């Protein structure tokens, strides 16, 4: 039996804008179906990494392989759930329009959606619990519902790798649980998921692997391997306080839109 390559292999990549390098010399491998949390302080390069994985930000150096082939060789095996601020919510599209966009990769640009496509769209919307909102325009939805519409689109895309940028920031508890329900469903289907989050507790308790970065790779492995005093100190520096009983506190100042945030790890 031939050796199956890792789902995602990152080899010595450096990424940046213009002359500025945001992420330096990053390497790691993600096996099929793993759920990876990407954590690190603000401005550590989490969103930048995602942009490179999607292919909108060219690499300064290094290589990205998916199924052993370089990025771009596959047309639609990466799906991306954008951060809320990156979407124009006033655009005239309904929930079902948004989800159908996820099918364009399979349908092709010049054919009408088949019965099967329509069925996949309907099922994805139902699975995210927003069936009654199908014909509303996305601007009419609440924040959590909007995120679920984009999750439904990601589901309809039938990706091999799903990227989510901060899906747990500023959403209601229902949306968070629906999101984890989706992640469990995707794990069964061997879909690799890579998710950036500020919530270190979630990262420690509900993910297989954690990628800790701060402009470079600090640590990559199981939560137990990654969340050590040394690694956290390396990533968060002075924002980390180590208590006598072994408890650690991370306190970091957040970008303007986000609420002030505390996370703790035992």
């Amino acid at each position, binding site marked *: 039996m031939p050796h199956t390559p890792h789902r995602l292999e990152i080899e010595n990549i450096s990424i940046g804008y213009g002359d500025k390098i945001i992420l330096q010399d990053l390497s790691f491998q993600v096996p099929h179906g793993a759920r990876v949390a990407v954590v690190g302080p603000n401005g550590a390069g989490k969103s930048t990494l995602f942009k490179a994985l*999607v292919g909108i930000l060219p690499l300064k150096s290094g290589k990205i392989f998916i199924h052993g082939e370089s990025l771009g060789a596959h047309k639609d095996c990466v799906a991306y759930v954008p951060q809320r601020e990156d979407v124009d919510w006033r655009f*005239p*599209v*309904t929930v079902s329009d948004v989800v159908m966009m996820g099918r364009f990769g399979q349908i092709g640009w*010049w054919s009408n959606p088949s019965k099967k496509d329509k069925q996949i769209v309907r099922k994805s919307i139902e699975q995210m619990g927003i069936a009654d909102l199908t014909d509303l325009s996305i601007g009419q939805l609440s924040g959590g519902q909007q995120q679920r519409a984009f999750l439904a689109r990601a589901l309809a895309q039938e990706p091999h790798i799903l990227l989510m940028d901060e899906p747990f920031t500023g959403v209601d508890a229902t949306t968070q649980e629906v999101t984890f329900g989706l992640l469990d469903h995707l794990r069964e289907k061997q879909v690799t998921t890579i998710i950036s989050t500020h919530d270190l507790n979630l990262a420690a308790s509900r993910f297989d692997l954690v990628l800790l970065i701060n402009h470079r790779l600090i640590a990559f492995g199981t939560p137990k391997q990654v969340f050590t005093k040394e690694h956290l100190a390396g990533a968060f520096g002075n924002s980390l306080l180590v208590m006598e009983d072994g408890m650690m506190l991370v306190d970091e100042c957040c970008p303007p839109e986000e609420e002030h945030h505390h996370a703790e790890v035992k």
Partner: protein
Amino acid sequence: MNWLLEPLAYQFMQRGLFASVIVGVLCAVMGTYVVLRGMAFLGDAMAHAILPGVAIAYLLQGNLLVGAGVAAVIVALSIGLFSREGVVKEDTAIGILFAAALSLGVALISSMQTYAVDLSHILFGNVLGVSSSDLWLIGLLSLIILLIVAFFFNQFLVISFDPVLAATLRLPAELLRNLMLVLLALTVVVSLQTVGVSLAAAMLVTPAATAYLLTRRLLPMMLVSALIGALSSVIGLYLSYYLNIVSGSTIVLTATAFFLLAFLLKKMKSG
């Protein structure tokens, strides 16, 4: 019914009516992208930027539409070039090119001897001066632009709504954006004759903005916008005939009236 038919007894009125309806529909369809992608300033700039092309064509005694077309495409592509990779912000690039092209155009036209009349025609349009060869050219160009929009409808939707999805689907976003700029430039050129460069921007924005208030999906928005564009052109032209006012302004004012109506309707519905 007589007042409806009377103006049509004149051949130039028939041609004017055809031309303004075609332009009304075309501007309204392209205007959908202008409104949704926030390109209103770009549309305005492009309209003014074609002036030097018109002037040069006039000096060389060539076809004005061809001159305008060449100038518009050059300006559209240079805006893309200057603002690519964020060297200069797009609106800054537009501002620079717009002012430079307009100044060049005015300089060229003011050096001509009979500029006064022609300048006002270029600025405000002269729909009653549309010749039958102009009409053919307007019709053909419009048809081509509308066919391209129909052909790339899904792609334009994705690059406008979600550039990141466009990237994951490996769409040539840069190429499509430039294509859209060229289509916009050609639209402005086609509308030169009916509403003129100073009012073309209004025909791009107003019907589409009106349709945005009344619909919630892209295709219906486009169709309603086209309908409003066509109606504004017909009503505007009749007003122009009976009130003896420049057709460009009556057409734009009619479109504005539709917008105000839709705005009030929306306010009443939600409040």
